[in-house]
């Protein structure tokens, strides 16, 4: 089943004088359960593509369909609802809420979904166990390592059982060993939970483990290869 489809996706940034084409006519189809790595040099349009797919930004032209629905026409609150229910985000700098504990950070999306407290606690413990970070539950983000914070970010992203997880350079701030372990965790989530991953990265060990590798250059797809 197609989960993401883009049609002639184009994004042009303009400051009134200079125009920068970040994406040009990108046509892409991603199936459910795929483990996609989008690679390319800096400025190739990886993050822009991810932002368009995640409904964080609007394209200049073209369409993005998530599970068949055109998200480019949605209003801000509809997009927020969509992100809450269907999309999980993992950022380069983890971006946990510093005043909340690990378990509260993971719980937050469930609160926004209006899930009852007891059910929330059960789901949080389950996900923390799955990611092997249950002993960190009551720690604040600044009390744990970068690798642990990124695991928490993954836990926060998968807690709502989204259809798709978008990760932007998730290993950029981690050493290669921790980064490798993190990619393994994501592959595990992909295989066990059937969650679709789209990961932007230029980290060789991430690219090496891609299920499908899309290479971008100058805002266009240079290569699209299915590996497993």
């Amino acid at each position, binding site marked *: 089943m197609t989960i993401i489809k883009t049609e002639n996706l184009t994004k042009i940034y303009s400051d009134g004088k200079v125009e920068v084409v970040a994406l040009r006519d990108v046509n892409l189809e991603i199936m459910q359960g795929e483990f996609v790595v989008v690679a390319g040099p800096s400025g190739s349009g990886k993050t822009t593509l991810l932002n368009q797919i995640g409904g*964080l930004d609007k394209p200049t032209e073209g369409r993005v369909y998530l599970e068949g629905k055109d998200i480019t026409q949605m209003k801000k609150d509809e997009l*927020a609802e969509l992100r809450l229910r269907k999309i999980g*985000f993992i*950022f380069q700098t983890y*971006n946990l809420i*510093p*005043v*909340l504990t690990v378990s*509260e950070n993971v719980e937050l999306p469930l609160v926004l979904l209006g899930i009852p407290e007891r059910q929330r606690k059960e789901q949080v413990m389950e996900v923390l166990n799955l990611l092997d970070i249950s002993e960190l539950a009551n720690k604040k983000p600044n009390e744990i390592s970068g690798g642990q914070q990124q695991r928490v970010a993954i836990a926060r992203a998968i807690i*709502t059982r989204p259809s798709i997880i978008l990760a932007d350079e998730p290993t950029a701030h981690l050493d290669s060993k921790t980064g490798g372990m993190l990619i393994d965790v994501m592959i595990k989530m992909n295989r066990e939970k059937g969650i679709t991953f789209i990961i932007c990265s230029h980290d060789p060990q991430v690219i090496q483990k891609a299920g499908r590798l899309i290479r971008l250059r100058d805002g266009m797809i240079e290569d699209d290869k299915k590996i497993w």
Partner: protein
Amino acid sequence: MIFKLAWRNIWRNKRRTIVVMLSIIVSVAVLLLVDTLSVGMMKQMLDNQINIHISHIQIHKKGFKDDKTVKNYIPDDLKVEKAIMEIEEIKFYSKRVITYGMINSAYNSSAVIIVGIQPDKEKFITIISNSISRGKYLENKGEILLSEKLAQKLNVEVGDKVVLMVSDVDGNISTELFRVVGLYESPHSEFDKINAYITIEDAQKILKLDGKVIEFALIVKDQKYVNHIKEKLEQKLGDLYEVLTYADVAPFIRIMLDMYYQMIWIYYFIFGVAVCFGIVNIMLMSVFERVREFGVLKAIGMKNKNIFLLIMTESFIIGVLGTIIGLALGFAFYIPLSKSGVDLGFFAKSLAWFGTGRIIYPVLTNFTLALVSLTMPFMSLIGAIYPAVKSIKLEPVEAIKHI
């Protein structure tokens, strides 16, 4: 969770939160004290006006209010007495004869308001019997009670003789000799300057009123129902009589009360606006410091209304917490002061002119409590609107990139 998040957020920068909270605490405490002191002053002024002379309700012949001449005596005092007796809510009443005249001593003379009273009954109407500074209270015919101020002006002492000169009911000049039996001093210096008391019988005699009275002064059981009792009396007495409450008799009291309300609103406005700007300042700083975080919250699906609610909650907590501590501080001062009173000795002269007395007892009303409790939380919400709007206008993509 929004509350938990808001609560923890406000303590991220403790010093900043405490500084703005201190401004709320001090504002609330000061407003509580200024307001209760003002109410106390108004209440004392009103009570003194009522207790020194006015009483709760006065009954005259129609037209006396505008033409205070002896000719406007009450045509049928028995009818008035009967009407008073029929109304249960009236506690005490006393008859009076009032006129203007001259008082002469061997050394000086002065214009004076001569109040003929029933000494025994007047004790329950006014505080004059308790305000005797020298000599004794009025008992018998031929006696006169002067204020310390008037006695000083006339250069007389207790036991000295004075002559009253009035225009009687027929318009003839009438004079009578009186012996000063006592001197009084009320909290109202202006009142003291011109009022002298004699017995009602003497007043009737000197004015040739033949047993007629000019005024009935009434004290009711509950001051709150004074207008209701006035209506009852008007129904019973008909058009020939005027029934006046203390507010009708002394309209300046109402003006003072109106002035108080206007002043107090200005106080609340000034303090409220100051706190509001403080809140705008710290909440804006707080929003700008957390731009990236708002981007993340938006990215994970938090809707704008929840982000708006988060900022408003943070500000509201600061407002409520500041108000609670401010009230506690205010009460720490108010409770002992409401018992001991505040000695405003350095304003004694002007306070005596207003008739309040130099010791002011602060009075807390439900209105003050409500106003002082709600102003700062309300202004905190107002102050948070702009920062909250700023936060919801952030674009997630831009916000996440923010350093």
